[in-house]
């Protein structure tokens, strides 16, 4: 059994605030607005049970962006989509880290009902994490030209990382 990694837009949207106006067991709508679904698809990454590929997946996410930026994400059990009727498709990712792209998945044909059910199912148990920008910078510079296919990195990010490599610290 593995987990799915879901990249957050803003981690603060996933805060458990226990707001007084919420009915018992209800969740504020903010996390639902944080999920980016396009054409009924939600992009996630599958993480091995021993989490041996998680650093590579984070590398893939960080190297796919336009600029150096912190990465915020959550992990939840991979059995949940099946339990709530969400279809999962193994669609190879297009990140600049070729060795990890086969871990990419899409939740497909998603409806608004499924979106709500998904948020309700994962909100209280999702394991939330953040990698700060300096940590991402260190990760990217250490794998630059190794695991990262530099030719597939967006120009602005490429320029920023190359500056970091030339001016360490």
């Amino acid at each position: 059994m593995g987990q799915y990694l879901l990249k957050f837009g803003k981690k603060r949207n996933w805060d458990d605030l226990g707001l007084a106006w919420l009915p018992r067991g209800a969740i504020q709508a903010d996390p639902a607005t944080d999920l980016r679904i396009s054409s009924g698809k939600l992009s996630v990454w599958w993480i091995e049970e021993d989490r041996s590929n998680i650093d590579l997946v984070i590398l893939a996410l960080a190297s796919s962006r336009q600029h150096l930026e912190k990465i915020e994400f959550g992990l939840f059990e991979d059995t949940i989509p099946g339990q709530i009727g969400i279809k999962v498709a193994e669609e190879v990712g297009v990140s600049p880290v070729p060795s990890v792209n086969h871990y990419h998945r899409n939740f497909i044909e998603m409806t608004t009902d499924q979106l709500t059910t998904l948020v309700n199912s994962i909100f209280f148990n999702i394991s939330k994490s953040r990698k700060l920008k300096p940590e991402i910078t260190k990760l990217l510079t250490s794998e630059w030209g190794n695991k990262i296919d530099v030719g597939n990195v967006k120009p602005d990010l490429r320029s920023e990382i190359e500056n970091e490599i030339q001016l360490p610290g």
Partner: protein
Amino acid sequence: MISDLEPSILSSMKLFLCESSVTGSFVPESLLLHAGDWDAKGLHLKYLNAVENFDINREWVEAKTGVIVSSAPGYSLADLRVITDPHNVILSSSRGVRYVEEFTGSTVKHLRPTQYDMEQSLWTQSETVENPSLARRLKALLGIQLREFDDELEGIEFKSEFTRLLRQGGKTALHIIKKIIDTESANPEALSSALEVIGEYSDPETYEERFRLMVSALKSTSRWIRDGASIGLAALGDIRALEFIEKAISAEPVSDLKEDLEGVLAYLRSIG
């Protein structure tokens, strides 16, 4: 509940507490405003002519001289349960506290200076350089509604424009931003992103001002702003921030944010 306040005041959006104009032996040295969980009840301190000194659980706040409390839409000032002196003696409108429903900027200025004001004098003295145009542009940028921040490209455009204004305005821009934070007159999500940029911005001339601004913002009533300040301090990589992050962790009521602050603390310790 505040038992002996007029109903009209309880339903007011703002409450002004003043001990400086009250005479007699009942005048307390400071006021403790008890509300339970301030964040969960939508209560905010709007003007800090006061020492913002939350207790460890953020259930009460100590205020000296005067403070304005506001409630967010959908909340009521009735959630401000009780006001006491430092010895937990309950105060009322006839004993040590004056409530003013309507107030103006000049009312606030007539309050006597407090230690807080003196600590802030570095900021106010430096603010003699007026730049209304810069203030207007910063307020417009930081006041936008930020659903678009979920879009990476829009976020990049915001950061690019904010960096440009920061470069153009230098210390004056930072003073304006501090005012915006103190008066909560902008979108907290925008301010959070702005604080991240302020931490990443490379400019030795404004280093100390940026450091102090972020340390100050760790005490914001907004979890978004507290978060942005901590991320900015991580980006700055100044280990002097350690003690302030530790204090922020102790005071943080949102458990998810507390974990993120601990992440910043661990990062700063790793580079220290």
